[in-house]
């Protein structure tokens, strides 16, 4: 891959081109100022947001996320975090579309268990079908089951986002083999969503051939979130370039010197 080809290495989601392959969440930061600084350091163009009841009767001058992250500067990805049924997820995203002036790119996640936050794939499939029929571009959070991933693609999801490990756990990539199968079978972008703990996890995901990584907690709860955001940006770029470069073959138990074996002194 030469320089020209790398320049053209755009990420396309639902027909929209993006330069950054790092997608970030906006939760768990100390304040909106830190949120903005970390997101800028990450270089992310797509930012996830949650849809929640507006605080009624509180300070009208209280700053809002939208003031710090103007929707015309970032691509918002409203999510359905906290939804445990297809109906709740659909309702949330319909409200999000109204809130964001007809915006259709969304992250669907339907959870199955409050302790593990594992996705309920049956409800996820059912919600995805309806949302796609209603014109949404659905990026879908799912388990790392290759069969379900394929089914979600077949019904029209624009991106498949399997977990690497549990949401917010920072446990890293637990099943790279399943992720490889999902990537191999997919003709839409695949993102690792959830579980990344540090920069090497992000690089491994990209080296496996993921099209990008979505993360929140690994950046927001780092001791220095802004520095970690920069580290993640580099890890995503390094992992992507390593994937495109095509790594050397592994020579198990078979050393090969890098220096000439001829012309040794003595």
């Amino acid at each position, binding site marked *: 891959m030469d320089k020209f080809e790398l320049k053209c290495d755009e990420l396309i989601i639902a027909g929209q081109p993006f330069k950054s392959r790092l997608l970030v969440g906006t939760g768990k930061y100390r304040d909106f100022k830190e*949120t903005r600084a970390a997101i800028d350091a990450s270089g992310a163009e797509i930012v996830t947001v949650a849809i929640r009841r507006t605080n009624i009767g509180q300070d009208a001058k209280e700053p809002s996320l939208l003031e710090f992250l103007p929707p015309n500067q970032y691509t918002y990805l409203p999510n359905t975090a906290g939804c445990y049924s297809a109906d709740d997820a659909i309702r949330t995203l319909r409200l999000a579309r109204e809130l964001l002036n007809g915006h259709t790119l969304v992250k669907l996640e339907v959870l199955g268990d409050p302790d593990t936050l594992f996705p309920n794939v049956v409800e996820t499939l059912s919600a995805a079908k309806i949302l796609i029929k209603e014109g949404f571009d659905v990026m879908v959070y799912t388990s790392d089951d290759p069969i379900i991933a394929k089914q979600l693609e077949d019904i029209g999801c624009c991106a498949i986002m399997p977990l690497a490990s549990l949401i917010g756990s920072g446990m890293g990539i637990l099943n790279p083999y399943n992720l490889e199968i999902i990537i191999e079978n997919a003709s839409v972008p695949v993102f690792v969503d959830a579980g990344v703990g540090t920069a090497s996890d992000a690089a491994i995901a990209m080296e496996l051939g993921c099209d990008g990584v979505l993360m929140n907690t690994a950046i927001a709860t780092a001791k220095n979130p802004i520095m970690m955001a920069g580290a993640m940006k580099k890890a995503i770029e390094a992992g992507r370039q390593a994937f495109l470069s095509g790594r050397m073959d592994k020579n198990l138990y078979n050393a090969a010197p890098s220096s000439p074996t001829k012309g040794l002194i003595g």
Partner: protein
Amino acid sequence: MKIVINGREKEFEGGKITPNDLAQHLKITGKRFAMECNGQIISRSDFSIMYIKDGDQLEIVGAVGGG
């Protein structure tokens, strides 16, 4: 009249109120929000022409930080 906003009962004078009037009352005019009445989304273009009535259940939502 009594209406339920985001799970809390609120009392208003009179028998009906537009979403715009309600937003003004709640001091959220100018903020970005979406509104649902009895499970149906109210389009922004209807904010000045439709009426919220006694007993209606409203949800008013916005975007917050999340992953």
